[in-house]
């Protein structure tokens, strides 16, 4: 029997976008991406916390490589550095 997801997916997805919006300028790309992944992942029925954490780190690394390394976008990676 599957648990009914209710509002959780919607809140997770929207919340993650807003999190990104809040953090990207204040904290930098890497923290923003990591938290966004974590919050987004909470919307899934099959949430496995360890997987989500690993994913957060990997995606953050990939985004940094892609945007700053490859595409030369002016992002601050972590605020203050």
């Amino acid at each position, binding site marked *: 029997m*599957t648990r009914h*997801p209710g509002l959780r*997916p*919607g809140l*997770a*997805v*929207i919340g*993650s*976008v*807003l999190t*990104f*919006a*809040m953090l*990207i*300028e204040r904290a930098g*790309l890497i923290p923003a*991406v990591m938290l*966004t*992944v974590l919050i*987004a*992942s909470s*919307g*899934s*029925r*099959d*949430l*496995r916390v360890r*997987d*989500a954490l690993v*994913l957060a780190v990997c*995606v953050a690394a990939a*985004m940094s490589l892609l*945007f700053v390394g490859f*595409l030369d*976008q002016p*992002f601050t990676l972590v605020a203050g550095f």
Partner: protein
Amino acid sequence: MLGLDNLALGFATALTPGNLLACLTGAFIGTLIGVLPGLGPVTTIALLLPFTFSLSPTGAVIMLAGIYYGAQYGGSVTAILINLPGEASSTITCLDGHAMARQGRSGLALSVAAIGSFIGGTVGTVLLAVLAVPLASLAARFEAADYTALMICGLVAGVTTAQGSVLKAIAMMISGVLLGLIGTDATGEARFTLGIPELRDGIGFMPLAIGMFGLAEIIATLTSPDDRPVMWTRVSTSWPEPGETRRVAAASLRGTALGSVLGVLPGGGPTMASFVSYAVERKFARGSRSLGSGAVEGIAGPESANNAAAQTAFVPLLTLGLPSGAVMALLLSALIVHGIQPGPTVIAKEPALFWGLVASMWIGNVMLLVLNLPLVGLWARLVRVPYRLLYPTTLVLSCTGIYALSHSTVDLVMTALFGVLGYLLRTRGFRAGPLLLGVVLSEPIEDNLHRALLFSDGDLTTFVTHPFSAVLLAIAGLMLLSSVLPILRQGRTMLSPEDR
């Protein structure tokens, strides 16, 4: 017409290393997202638009087009192997495709799908090349009134064939047109901006597209009941039975013809083409297996149809500047952003772009055939990536992409808002496709309406006295009538998942 010098120019353009790479990238990404359920060409193209700014306009269009028709190849892989269509246009392939997989003939099914797609795609490309110039010269005689009528006709066609309730689609379309009005009007005055300075340039297209399509789609997938699909990810090779090769060829040709016609029509598209092709094959499928239980026609026909439709869908866009669906609307905005105004003059003003694109489509189809046959094992394994890992990645990519475009967190907030709106509307049967179409056509319609009325000194009968305009408006009126009339008698829904 289809002069040798045009083709020579086309291939010369398409075969440059940069454009070849763009083509390969597009085809690969297209197949990839076609294989992965939950990620579609609309979202992906919306996502990758900002990244194409560093490419030349030709390269950008080549890549984005590759994604679109590439997805028609990839969608059949999951349809056959796990009875889950990667794309809406491969839904019908599930029926006979998965049946064949269960019979141990998955390898053959996949080959038929790839080859059928190739035939459809190649012929569609040829048609695009042949039809483009005559159509464009016809449209060159259009005046402002005719353009207005043409776009209104396009809008009406887009809603009368939309998924679900026609009235809801009309409502979304009108909302889209109204949303498109936000910003600055022809005299430079701010309009509907609520005093927010960021809105002077209008509603951001990216936040709208990604919010209403991407985010809404993700939320919908997460909230829908989960079925554990039966997985046949081991691909077996098998040879066709006697006579099957001929049946595949026949079905492919039928599907290609159908798809080519349906792709050109606004509101038509790969999904509708595949459904219609299946209905046609019902009458033609012969042999030991009837349609639905593993007949090769059930794969060859629809797969050829959806690829042919994906190619000919470019005809109205490139010759008339008229997008025939959500994906084309996105490509239209991509072209505009690169400084190209699609319309009859595009072929004359930018021959390298147009013929290069056409040549690249043919090259792309060859690449896809080569990619798909041997790489099927890879795609089969990829399908097993769990959604809970996939969608956060997509989300982050979307957010970063949007922010990279404008460095404005306001855009991100708007994306979130549109995501909520898009999902709420979707649960009540309002699809985002017509809205997107409305937004994209809003400004051109207004511009042309303005100019038409300027020329006629405010006389509205100009739309009737111009012959093209009169005909187009009559067609639009007929389409509206024929779809609204049944509603007055009874309830009616029409199936066309194209705008997902």
